Structure formats: structure tokens, C-alpha cells
């Protein structure tokens, strides 16, 4: 049987789903974490042997969708005929939640109500008479605390017992024309009237919700337009600093030591066959090892972000950022994809679904990957280590420049699409604060670490192997001789691209090849560089200093510190990996937007790298770097294309607008 989990946003559906199935789907303390449907069999210890599949759905306030992800839920319960619905009710907000409950009860599918967050109610002294509520709703009502796995067995037992039965609705909406908005709204008011009476009879509250509490005082500070933003910047800086400058590299150093020992051991085993040794020890172990070596940095960041997401802070950040984001044509809710984007771009782009306005949603999906994701951390750490002595400012600048590019990009999108004045409202529920669970953050971190290692052992490994082979052989499939590296397959393919990159300061084919493999997965930039230059202990700058130093890496790559920074920024702000581009495609639902996004990202990466390289070189040496004029021409062409697109859109826009006017006039 299939059991659908439906309820208001942030009522704990995914927490319950994870507990029942043993999965680790993303959870967080704000409304709209789950934006798609997920299903998985429930553990048999809960079902008593019956085969049952749990279907986790995005949160919804009612059967009438307001944002795209709400539509997934109403469509599923209406059209897919699950065998039972577990309606997770936020018991701390019974009077709002039961509105949706009574709608679910009308579908005829057996419903079990789980009164979740019972622990908070007990703490606050709210009493709910679940027996009486159960009688009135004609369905089982069970108190649960999903975070502590309390009551879950009873919920599933009740759902299993109802398999095959039908549901009698306690409240039926009058037969009305569902297309008549006023009639629907009038019926919704009546439904709320019924719910209000119901709640009066079954609920007793010790504390009135409208009373000012301690958390209101915390909110006042966190959402203060000035202090709140400073706090947010400080918190994010703290996360990046701990994970990438302090604790992360400390653990990574230790890990890299073991990877090196392993690599040497592999090489010694294959000493007899130098070619195989090169391919396996340098190509596979070296390339993958270079990526895995950065794992501690990524893990620590995931852990800290998970803590942030769990405590209830994210909704406050959205609120405090809303006025700023609104000014550039985005929404306060755009903050959430941006913070999720520090982990991975794919879920970040999917999280844009909770943004109601289509233009704001698409623009956010287009821009949120400017924030460096977890896969870009190795790239940042590599360059910070090899060229800047591990300086903390490199990673900080990378993130804050990403944020600045989001703002600038949003302004550009606003200008190009011809901003028409439209009311864009912001409303977001402030969830109750909770002490973040270390166990949950740990689990989430391990889950992501597993995914990272799997990726390194599959995609990255294969790419490194291919890169290694393409570098080892020329087009006649003969091993490339020393000094003839430019004739390898890889070199001949990458060289034309490298030519385009000369104005940016990094015209070497190895660097171009690394940037290209980066589109498959950003970790590949590090993997490919490791393979091409035969270097592994990138992160261990101290060790490099002993063996000739970070300078050796720098010299091998033929980069100055300025062009190294340009190369880093180029890789950070060009289009994300193919997976993220794919998810951009499915969220934007528009070819035009998708290609504009890719084009914008390519131009941004190019322009940022160009400016950093040319002006950086100007400041350090007194003259522009090579290729200044060709680069300038390239940038001018990009600007021209943007202007042309903008003109076209605006002309179209005016046309559409005048059509509207004509239609209105003819109606009148």
C-alpha cells in the first residue's frame, strides 16, 4: 500500500518520513524544504510485515496551490489515489492546520491525523483532547513527536488498519462552481468557521500566541535591517572560516598524509610497468586523491550549514534580506536557494520553487549558482593554498563576490526583461526556534560525505582516467614522448580553447582542459590539474614549501598570483556543472531563460577573470597583461548581445502591453 504524507509546511513530514524509512532526505526548520515528491518503503518494524511505501510530499496550506510546490501535493492526493493519507498536523497551530485536514478528509481516502510537535505543546502547556477530535473528524488522531520518533508506530499501524476502507468526511463543502473564485472563498470561510468551533472544543492553551515571548526579542535583533544583516554576514563568514581556514585544513592535512602513503604504495607495486604506474598511481589514485583530500573541508561546512538550517534562523534571514533583494528584483525567499547553494547547486535551484513570482523564481535559479558550491571548495582551497599561502581572504572573497554577482546579475535581469511595476508581496512563517540537533547535523554530513566519495570514485575517477589517457597518447595512439606534451590528444583539443583564454591570463592548454572537465563536475578542475601537472598534495602547502614550495605548483602552472586568482574566479562563476544546468532547465521551463542563464554565466566568468587579470596586472606590473585589446573586444561583443536581447524583449513587451490595452478597451 502507498501512504501519502501531507500537511502544512514545516509540520514535520520529512522528519517523520526519514524516521520511518531510514532515509536522510533534507529537513530544515522552515516552510518549504521539501519541494518534490519522494517515496520509499517503510521499515517493517513499523508496518508489522505489511508492505507499505511512504510518499513524502511538499507542504501545503490547502488544496488550492499558491506556489508551484504546493501544486505537487494537491495533484498527488487528488489524482494518484494513495491507499491512505497520514496528515501531519503541526499541533502548535491546530486551528490553521485542520483547514487542510478537513479538505483531505473529503477525498474519500482513509486519513490518519498525526498531531506532531507534541513535545512543544507539552512544554507550552497546550492540551488537545485527541479522543474528542478523533470522534469529530471520523478518523484516528495520534499524538507524535517525529524528532524523537514518538508515536510513529501507532500512526502507521492505524494507517495499515485502514487499508482498503473509505473515509467519511466530517465536513462537506457545498456544491459550488469551483471556477467561481468568490464562491470558493466563501466556502473556505465557512470551512474555517467549522474548524474554529472544533478547535474551541478540543484545545486548551496556557499561553496566548499573541503574547510577546523571548523569541520575539531574538527576532527583533535578527531581523533588524542593519544588525540583522551584519549578523548574517558574520555567521556565514564563521561557517566559511571554520570549514575552510581553521578546522577543515587541519583535518585535511592529516588525511592527505594517508592518501600520499597509499599512492606511493600503489606506485611501488607497479614499478615494473611504468606506463600502468603512471595511469593508475598518478591518474586514478592521484586525481581522485586530490579531490578526496578536500573532503574534510566540505564535510565540516555541511555540518555547520545543517545546524543553521535546523535552528529556525533561515526564515529570519529571508525576512531581513527581503528589502535588499526586492530592490534588485528578487525575493527574500531567494536567500534560501543561495544558502543551500553553498552545499550543492542542484537542490538550490530546486528550492526556487517556493518563490511565487515567475520572474523572481527564474532569476533566482539563474543566479544562485554564483555562490560557490561544495564541489568548488577544493578549487578554492587549492588556489588559496598554492598561490596565497592559504590566506582566509581568498575563500571569503569568493563567496562575497559570488553574492555581489548575484545582485549585479539580478539588476541586469531586471533591466533586460523590462521591469514592469508589479506588487511582489513577501510573507513567510517564522518557525519556533529549536536547539539544533547535533545528531541530525552529523547524519546529514555523513550522507553528503558518502555522496561526495561516491562521486569521486565514479564520475571524477572516470574523468581523470580519460584525461590521463588523452594526455598520455597522441592521435596515432602512441605514447607521447617527454618534451612533446603538446602533441597529446588532450593538448590538441584544449589548445583552441586556451587561445580564447589568453586575455584572462591563463592560456595554457592544461588549464583550459581543467576548466572544461569542470563542467562535468567542478571537482574535476582539481582532479585534472593534479593529473596534468602530476601534483597531488595540493592542500599540504607546508609540505610543498619543503619540497620546493607552493611556488613549484605556481611555476608548473605558469601563473602569476593575479592570473591564478583570475583562473579561480573563472571556474567559480562560469556555468555550473551539467547536473545543475539540467535542474535549471526543469525549473525554468523556458529555453530562452535557460540559454540566457548559460550565456550570462559564461560572460560573467569571462568578464570577472578578464578584469581581475588585466587590472591586477596593471597594478602589480604597471602595464596591462597580454591580450587586453582582444579581450576588450570580446567583452564589448557580450555587452552588444545583451543590449540586443534586451531591445528585442522590450519591443515584444511593449507589443504585449499594447495588446492588453486593446483587449481591455474592446471589453469596455
Amino acid at each position: 500500500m502507498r501512504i501519502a504524507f501531507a500537511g502544512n509546511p514545516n509540520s514535520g513530514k520529512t522528519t517523520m518520513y526519514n524516521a520511518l524509512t531510514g532515509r536522510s532526505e533534507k529537513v530544515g526548520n522552515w516552510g518549504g524544504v521539501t519541494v518534490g515528491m519522494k517515496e520509499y518503503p517503510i521499515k517493517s518494524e513499523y508496518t508489522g510485515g505489511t508492505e507499505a511505501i511512504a510518499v513524502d510530499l511538499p507542504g501545503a496550506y490547502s488544496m488550492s496551490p499558491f506556489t508551484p510546490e504546493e501544486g505537487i501535493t494537491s495533484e498527488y492526493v487528488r489524482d494518484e489515489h494513495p491507499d491512505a493519507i497520514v496528515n501531519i498536523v503541526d499541533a502548535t497551530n491546530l486551528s490553521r492546520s485542520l483547514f487542510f485536514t478537513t479538505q483531505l478528509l473529503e477525498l474519500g481516502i482513509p486519513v490518519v491525523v498525526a498531531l506532531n510537535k507534541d513535545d512543544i505543546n507539552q512544554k507550552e502547556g497546550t492540551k488537545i483532547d485527541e479522543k474528542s477530535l478523533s470522534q469529530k473528524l471520523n478518523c484516528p488522531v495520534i499524538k507524535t513527536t517525529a524528532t524523537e520518533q514518538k508515536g510513529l508506530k501507532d500512526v502507521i499501524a492505524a494507517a495499515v488498519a485502514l487499508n482498503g476502507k473509505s473515509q467519511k468526511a466530517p465536513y462537506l463543502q457545498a456544491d459550488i462552481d469551483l471556477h467561481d473564485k468568490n464562491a470558493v472563498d466563501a466556502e473556505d470561510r465557512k470551512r474555517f468557521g467549522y474548524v474554529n468551533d472544533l478547535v474551541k472544543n478540543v484545545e486548551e492553551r496556557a499561553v496566548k500566541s499573541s503574547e510577546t515571548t523571548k523569541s520575539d526579542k531574538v527576532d527583533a535583533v535578527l531581523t533588524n535591517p542593519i544588525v540583522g544583516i551584519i549578523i548574517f554576514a558574520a555567521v556565514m563568514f564563521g561557517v566559511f572560516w571554520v570549514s575552510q581556514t581553521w578546522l577543515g585544513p587541519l583535518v585535511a592535512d592529516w588525511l592527505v598524509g594517508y592518501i600520499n602513503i597509499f599512492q606511493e604504495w600503489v606506485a611501488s607495486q607497479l614499478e615494473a610497468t611504468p606506463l600502468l604506474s603512471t595511469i593508475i598511481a598518478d591518474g586514478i589514485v592521484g586525481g581522485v586523491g586530490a579531490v578526496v583530500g578536500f573532503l574534510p573541508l566540505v564535510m565540516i561546512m555541511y555540518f555547520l550549514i545543517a545546524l543553521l538550517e535546523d535552528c529556525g534562523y533561515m526564515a529570519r534571514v529571508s525576512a531581513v534580506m527581503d528589502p535588499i533583494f526586492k530592490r534588485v528584483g528578487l525575493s527574500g525567499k531567494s536567500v534560501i536557494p543561495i544558502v543551500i547553494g553553498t552545499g550543492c547547486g542542484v537542490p538550490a535551484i530546486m528550492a526556487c520553487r517556493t518563490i511565487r513570482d515567475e520572474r523572481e523564481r527564474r532569476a533566482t535559479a539563474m543566479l544562485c549558482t554564483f555562490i560557490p558550491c561544495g564541489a568548488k571548495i577544493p578549487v578554492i582551497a587549492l588556489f588559496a593554498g598554492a598561490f596565497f599561502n592559504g590566506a582566509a581572504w581568498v575563500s571569503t572573497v569568493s563567496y562575497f563576490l559570488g553574492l555581489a554577482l548575484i545582485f549585479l546579475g539580478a539588476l541586469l535581469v531586471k533591466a533586460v526583461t523590462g521591469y514592469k511595476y508589479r506588487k511582489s508581496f513577501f510573507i513567510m512563517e517564522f518557525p519556533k526556534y529549536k536547539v539544533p540537533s547535533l545528531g541530525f547535523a552529523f547524519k546529514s554530513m555523513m550522507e553528503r560525505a558518502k555522496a561526495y566519495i561516491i562521486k569521486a570514485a565514479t564520475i571524477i575517477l572516470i574523468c581523470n582516467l580519460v584525461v590521463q589517457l588523452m594526455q598520455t597518447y597522441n592521435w596515432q595512439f602512441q605514447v607521447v614522448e617527454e618534451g612533446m606534451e603538446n602533441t597529446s590528444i588532450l593538448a590538441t583539443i584544449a589548445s583552441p580553447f586556451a587561445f580564447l583564454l589568453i586575455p584572462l591570463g591563463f592560456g595554457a592548454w592544461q588549464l583550459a582542459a581543467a576548466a572544461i572537465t569542470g563542467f562535468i563536475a567542478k571537482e574535476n578542475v582539481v582532479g585534472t590539474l593534479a593529473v596534468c601537472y602530476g601534483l597531488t598534495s595540493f592542500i599540504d602547502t607546508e609540505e610543498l614549501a619543503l619540497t620546493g614550495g607552493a611556488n613549484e605548483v605556481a611555476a608548473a602552472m605558469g601563473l602569476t598570483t593575479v592570473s591564478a586568482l583570475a583562473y579561480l574566479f573563472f571556474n567559480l562563476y562560469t556555468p555550473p556543472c551539467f547536473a545543475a544546468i539540467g535542474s535549471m532547465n526543469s525549473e525554468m521551463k523556458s529555453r530562452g531563460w535557460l540559454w540566457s542563464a548559460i550565456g550570462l554565466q559564461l560572460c560573467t566568468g569571462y568578464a570577472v577573470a578578464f578584469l581581475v587579470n588585466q587590472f591586477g596586472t596593471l597594478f602589480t606590473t604597471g602595464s596591462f597583461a597580454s591580450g587586453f585589446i582582444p579581450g576588450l573586444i570580446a567583452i564589448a561583443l557580450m555587452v552588444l548581445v545583451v543590449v540586443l536581447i534586451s531591445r528585442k524583449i522590450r519591443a515584444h513587451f511593449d507589443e504585449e502591453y499594447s495588446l492588453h490595452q486593446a483587449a481591455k478597451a474592446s471589453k469596455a
Partner: protein
Amino acid sequence: MEENKNLLQADLGVTYNVKKIDTEDPDMNSFLLRLGCYEGEPVTVVSKKKKSCVVVIKEGRYSMDNLLAEAIII
């Protein structure tokens, strides 16, 4: 004193009844209705900022921008 005020003019911590909601966006009006914010229902403003405020609707707290708060007449 039966003058109509909007939520921005509400006193902090005082519970008012909603008289009218008009955001000029029918879907937004319906969304507020489904949160429990409609004619006759109590609302309380717990804090005000320059561009937004925190409003208690039913048992939940919501941050809304002033544009939306202005459209809620109490």
C-alpha cells in the same frame, strides 16, 4: 473611533479583528484566507520594522512586508 486602519497603523501587541483584505491580487487574498487571515478573524502585530512587520495569525507568526500589511484593514 470606528476609523479604518491598516496593520501598519496597529498598536503593538493589541489584537484587532480584520475588516477587509485587499491586496489587488486575488490569489494573495485567497492565500491569506487559507492561513486564517480574513474578515472577522483576530490579528496581532508583535513587531514593526522599517519595511516589514511580524504578525500573529491564528497560532503562527509571519513576517510580512509593509506592502502586504497595508492591504490588511483592521
